[in-house]
């Protein structure tokens, strides 16, 4: 399996006035293409910081981060924006859709920053919205959609530039358990059918059970890294 992510001795320290607060204290991890990873840990364990670094939203204080073999820690802000646009899709706990903007346009948003012609944008946005099961909700605005549907729009937005990696930060945190299972099923389906690597942060073990690999953070270090090849799969059941 070829390597997607490699982090070496990644540290992150925040300064709160005069006090240095370590959030990450030497993380070493390798994640291959096509993996489905759940990052777990209690709040303050450093998992969100780790995700921000993986997502090129935050720089490590020390250590190196390779994305598909490229060292990205030293790249410029514009190059990071390009990586976030083309190589990483984000899904958030609070969906983070633009309000009063249709599902279609929300999904088109990432393509606005890389020079797609408007017809091509439309075509691809409709394609991914259909893929996540919202082909009939194109013109609905977020407040006309249920939480699960909103998260599907967010997933469609994350996928529309066909990135190899989707980062999901507590994607089911705001959803009931039935909808959560549906969303997790969608992630599994994408992982299996589209060969998209998924890294999700969660603190719920039954959500993490959908992943084939579970990494547990505590106090800024990885305390457990287990594989679970018999991941619970709604799709496979």
């Amino acid at each position: 399996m070829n390597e997607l992510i490699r982090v070496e001795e990644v540290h992150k320290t925040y300064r709160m006035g005069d006090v240095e607060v370590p959030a990450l204290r030497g993380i070493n991890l390798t994640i291959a293409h096509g993996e489905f990873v759940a990052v777990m840990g209690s709040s303050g364990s450093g998992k969100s910081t780790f995700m921000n670094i993986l997502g090129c939203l935050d720089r490590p204080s020390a250590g190196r981060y390779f994305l598909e073999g490229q060292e990205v820690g030293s790249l410029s802000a514009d190059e990071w924006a390009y990586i976030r646009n083309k190589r990483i899709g984000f899904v958030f706990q609070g969906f983070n859709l633009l309000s009063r903007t249709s599902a279609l346009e929300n999904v088109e948003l990432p393509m606005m920053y890389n020079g797609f012609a408007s017809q091509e944008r439309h075509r691809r946005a409709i394609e991914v919205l259909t893929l996540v099961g919202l082909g009939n909700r194109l013109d609905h605005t977020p407040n006309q959609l249920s939480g699960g549907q909103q998260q599907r729009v967010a997933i469609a937005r994350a996928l529309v530039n066909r990135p190899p990696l989707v980062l999901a930060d507590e994607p089911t945190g705001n959803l009931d358990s039935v909808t959560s299972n549906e969303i997790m099923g969608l992630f599994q389906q994408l992982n299996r059918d589209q060969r998209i690597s998924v890294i999700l942060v969660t603190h719920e073990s039954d959500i993490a059970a959908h992943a084939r690999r579970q990494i547990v953070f505590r106090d800024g270090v990885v305390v457990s890294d287990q594989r679970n090849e018999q991941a619970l799969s709604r799709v496979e059941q």
Partner: protein
Amino acid sequence: MQGLMTLRIALRALARNKLRAFLTMLGIIIGVGAVIAMVAIGEGAKSTIRAQIAALGTNVLIVLPGSNVQGGVRAGFGNVNTLLDADGKAMARELPSVAFVSPVLRRQEQVVAANLNWGTLAQGVAPEFQQIRDWEVAQGRFLHEGDMESAAKVAVIGQTVARQLFGSDDALDAVIRIRNIPFRVIGVLVPKGQTGQGTDQDDTVMIPYTTMQKRLMRITWVQSIVVKAVNAERVDEAQEQITLLLRQRHRIGPEREDDFNVRNLSDIAEAATTTARVMAVLLGSVASISLLVGGIGIMNIMLVSVTERTREIGIRMAVGARSRDIMLQFLVEAVVMAATGGLIGILLGIGSSELIKQWAQWPTLINPAIIAIAFLFSGAVGVFFGFYPAKKAANLDPIEALRYE
């Protein structure tokens, strides 16, 4: 991100807060409207003053023959016979800065009509004298070119002369006698009143200068030539050209003094136009302050908007917007507001200056250049005052922005 799309996003963002966008624009609308209306008022005043000065004769030059020196006695201007009618004709023909030329011969004469007589100033002039002095006829006509050629015995009389010789009777076609020569009255001038020195301008009789030369004064030269320049700005140019032309025509060597003298009234004109300009600048700068205030209003609302939309900015950054994309988005929004406000302001300014013209009877003059300047300036206000909020938006940390509630 393409320009058209940026514009669409900006328009949509503004459309979401229509009232707020309008109120923000109102500052610019009033500012631009005030600039245009104020400058129109100033310009109107300036052109009125100009016209009044022109009526006084500021773009008028007077050419007098030089002084005569005989045995150490310098006789003063106008006493020699060096200036000819042909000089005046040459000016009119050859100088582009010269609009009208008329010889002037003057003498105090006793004018007789029936049993009344009146001492007045007889002036021998050309038809162009009417344009030079902007002097309309109330009745009949002014002198014609034909009157010059035939040295016709016709006269145009001023209001004072008409009143003194004819009272309330019709003066037109009556016969007046000057030195026993009969002249037919062909026109009566409109009243012009007194000069600054108290001379009654209406106390005059105008006859063809050729008639004056041949029949009254028996001279071949002219006493003076009055010249009207094309406009007030070209008076100096006309003065130079006349000097050059006359030196040439009179064959005056480089070392020798002019045998003529060209005078103008440009000092008065300059003072008056300066006053008008100061007024226009003053009005314009007062109005510009309101434009500035409008710009601050835009900045204020843009800052609020950036704060309100912090999360949106975070989302856009997370999906790949670069700092400059975010910056451009907010900058375009500010510029769209300022430019739209500018356009409405231009309409308001034109409308209100028309109203002022109609209702306050104040002459206003809208200069197309000021409209263009006002529009560009409002756009610049948008860029200037939009820059800081846009920069603030672009510099947001995406993580903080995404977490913002």
